[in-house]
C-alpha cells in the first residue's frame, strides 16, 4: 500500500544516501531497475519550468517530493494548504488513512455537499471540506443559477442561435471551495499543555505528537483543543480508548519522507516544507490571488492570539467561520490564572469558615 503510493521512496538506505539534490534536480542512481519516473529525473529542466512564479505544478521541484532531513536538522516544518488549487479529490484523506492505518469515518451520506467525512477526529486526520457559498470566487463570471430565473418571459428578444429566450441576467454568484483540514500543530498547543501523562510532546520539527503507548485516555486534551481536532477513539475500533490526531507523519519524516497527504496531493494544494519558506510562499500566493480578483482571500494563521500561530496554516477565501475555524482561537491555559485564583480563594474561605464555626460554636 505504502510502496505503491511512494514510488521514489522505496529506496533502501544505501540508495537514499546516493540520492542528492543539486539545483532542484533529484539525481537518482539507476541501478538496473527499470524505474521510469526515476530516469525522468535525469532530464534537464524544461525552460518553462525554471520560471517558477506560480506555485502549482512544480512537480519534482516541489518540497513535496524531495527527501529531507528536517528531523535530523531540527528545522521547523509546516503544511501550507491552499484551497484555490484544491480539486476536492480526497487523496490526502485516503493516503493518510492508508499510511497511518486509521479506521474509516463511517460510510454515511451526510447531505453536506460532497463531504461525507464530517469533521476531524480520532479517526479523521485529514478532512476535505466542501464549502458552498453564494459569493463570487475571484473574478469568476456568474450567471443566473436558479430554475426560476431561467423561465422564458413573453416579449423577450429571442436568441439568434437557439431560439430560446435568454435567461434573465441576474447576478447569482455561487462558489464551491475545497479545503483540506488537518491538525494545526499550534505554536502553543492546548492538547500538549493539558496532557497529564506527558504523552503529547513537541517533536524536533515543531509538530505536536501523541505517543500512543503512553496515552491513558483521560480525555482532557479533547476539551483543550481550540480547533476540535484531537479526540478519543471509541470502542470497538483498534487502539480504542487513546487520543488520536494527525502525527504530521513523524514516522515518515524521521526517514526523510514527506507526510503522506502532501506526497499524494496532485495539485500541491497541500505543500509541505520548512515553516519559514511556507510562510513566505503563503504571503506570495495571497498577493497573487488578490491581484487576480480574489478580494476575500486571507491567510489563516492566528499569530495574534494566545495560540501564537499554527504550523499547518491555510489560505482561505472568506471568513474562517465558514470553514468551522475559530477566528480567535485561544489556548485554554490563559484561563488558568483566574480559575486558580477563584479556587484558592474558595479553599481559604472554606478553611476559615470551618475553623471559625468550630471555634465559636462548640
Amino acid at each position, binding site marked *: 500500500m505504502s510502496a505503491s503510493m511512494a514510488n521514489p521512496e522505496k529506496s533502501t538506505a544505501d540508495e537514499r544516501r546516493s540520492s542528492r539534490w543539486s539545483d532542484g534536480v533529484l539525481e537518482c542512481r539507476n541501478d538496473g531497475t527499470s524505474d521510469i519516473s526515476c530516469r525522468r529525473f535525469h532530464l534537464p529542466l524544461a525552460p518553462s519550468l525554471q520560471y517558477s512564479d506560480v506555485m502549482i505544478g512544480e512537480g519534482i521541484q516541489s518540497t513535496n517530493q524531495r527527501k529531507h532531513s528536517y528531523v535530523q536538522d531540527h528545522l521547523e516544518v509546516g503544511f501550507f494548504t491552499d484551497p484555490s488549487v484544491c480539486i476536492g479529490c480526497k487523496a490526502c484523506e485516503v493516503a493518510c488513512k492508508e499510511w497511518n492505518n486509521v479506521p474509516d469515518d463511517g*460510510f454515511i451520506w451526510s447531505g453536506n455537499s460532497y463531504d461525507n467525512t464530517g469533521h476531524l477526529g480520532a479517526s479523521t486526520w485529514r478532512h476535505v471540506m466542501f464549502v458552498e457559498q453564494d459569493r463570487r470566487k475571484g473574478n469568476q463570471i456568474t450567471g443566473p443559477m436558479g430554475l426560476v430565473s431561467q423561465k422564458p418571459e413573453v416579449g423577450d428578444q429571442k436568441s439568434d442561435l437557439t431560439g430560446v429566450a435568454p435567461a434573465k441576467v441576474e447576478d447569482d454568484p455561487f462558489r464551491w471551495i475545497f479545503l483540506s483540514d488537518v491538525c494545526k500543530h499550534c505554536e502553543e498547543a492546548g492538547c500538549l*499543555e493539558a496532557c497529564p501523562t506527558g504523552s503529547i510532546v513537541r517533536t524536533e520539527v515543531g509538530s505536536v505528537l501523541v505517543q500512543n503507548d503512553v496515552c*491513558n485516555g483521560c480525555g482532557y486534551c479533547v*476539551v483543550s483543543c481550540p480547533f476540535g481536532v484531537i479526540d478519543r477513539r471509541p470502542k470497538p475500533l483498534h487502539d480504542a480508548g*487513546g487520543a488520536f490526531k494527525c502525527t504530521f507523519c513523524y514516522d515518515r519524516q524521521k526517514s526523510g519522507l514527506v507526510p503522506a497527504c502532501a506526497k499524494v496531493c496532485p495539485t500541491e494544494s497541500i505543500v509541505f516544507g520548512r515553516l519559514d519558506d511556507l510562510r513566505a510562499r503563503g504571503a506570495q500566493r495571497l498577493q497573487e490571488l488578490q491581484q487576480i480578483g480574489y478580494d476575500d482571500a486571507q491567510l489563516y494563521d492566528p499569530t495574534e492570539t494566545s495560540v501564537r500561530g499554527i504550523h499547518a496554516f491555510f489560505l482561505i477565501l472568506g471568513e474562517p467561520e465558514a470553514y*468551522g475555524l475559530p477566528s480567535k482561537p485561544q489556548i*485554554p*491555559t490563559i484561563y488558568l490564572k*483566574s480559575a486558580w485564583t477563584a*479556587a484558592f480563594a474558595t479553599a481559604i474561605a472554606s478553611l476559615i469558615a470551618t475553623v471559625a464555626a468550630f471555634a465559636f460554636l462548640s
Partner: protein
Amino acid sequence: MTSEKRLDELREQAWKDGVVAGKGVDVAGGPIPRKPGYYAQPVVKPPVWTWEIPLYFFLGGMAGMLAVIALGAAMFHLVELARGAMWIAAIAGAILSPLLLIMDLGRPHLFLNMLRVFKQRSAMSMGAWILSAFGACVVPGLIALELHTHHIFAGTLDQLLRLAAGLFTFGSAIFGTLLATYTGVLIGATAIPAWFLHRTLLPIHFGTAGLGCAAGLLELLGHRIPALNFIGFYAAAVESALLIWLTVDKHGAADRAIHEHGSGWLIRIGEILNGPLALVLRFFGLVPFAAVSFLIGALVSRFGWIAAGKISGSDPESVFAAERSSVTTPRR
C-alpha cells in the same frame, strides 16, 4: 438501509419539503448552507466523559471538605466527629474517587501514567497529584487517629500517633480544599465556551458545594452540632449568591447551554436545591431536609455542568459567539 437508498430519500425529501431534517443538513432555498459555521459541525470537541466524572466531582469534593471539617473537629477535641469525617473522606476520596477516575479512562490499565509528569499548566495533572496527595494523607491520618483513639499503644508511641494524626489530618484538609476546588479549574480552563466563560464561578461553586455536602452528610449521620449547622448556612448562602451570579452573568448564544436545554435545567434545579431551598429549610430548623436538599442539589448540578459542556462543545455558534464577546479577547 443502504446508502444509495438514503441518498434517494434525502433527495425526495429535499424536493418535497425544501428542507431536510438532520444534523448539518440544510438545503432550504438552495445549495447554500445556512447553518452557522461549516454545516453546523462542532468547532471544538465536546467532552468524552461519562457519568463517572460528575459523580467523582461530587464525591471528591465532599471527601476533600470532610477532611477540612475533620481538622476543625480535631482542633476543638470533637474526636467522634473527626473520626466519622475521616472515615468517609478516606472511603470517598481515597477509594471511590480514584476508582471512578480509572473507570472513566480510555485505557484504565495505564492509570499510573497520570503520575509520570508534574505539570503546573495542566489542571488534570495537578488534580491527579492533589488526589494522590490527599489519599496519602487521609489514609495514614485515619489509621493514626483510630490507633490513638483506641489507645492501642501506650506511652510515647501513642503520643507520636496523636501527632501523626494531627499532621496527616492537617495535610488532608489542605489537599482536601484543593481537591474540592481544582475540578472547577479543570473544566474552567478548557476550550468549551459554557465552561471557560464561568471559570471563576466554577471553583467557588464546586468547593462550596463540597463543603455543604460534607456538613450535610455528617448531620444526617447524627452529628447535629451548631458548628455544622453554621457551615450548612454558609454553604447555602454562598450557593444562593452563585445562583444570582449565574442568572445575571449571561453571555447569550455563547453559554446558552447553561441557561437553556436540559443541562440548563439541571444546573438551575441543582442551584435552587443547594442554594435558596437549603437556606430556607435550615432557617426553619429543618436540618435533615436542608442537608438532603443540598446533597441532591450538588449532585444534580455536577451532572448539569458536564451536560452543559457536551451541549456547548457540540454547538459551533457558542464558540463563535464567545469569540465575539469581549470576554475572550486577550488583553495585551
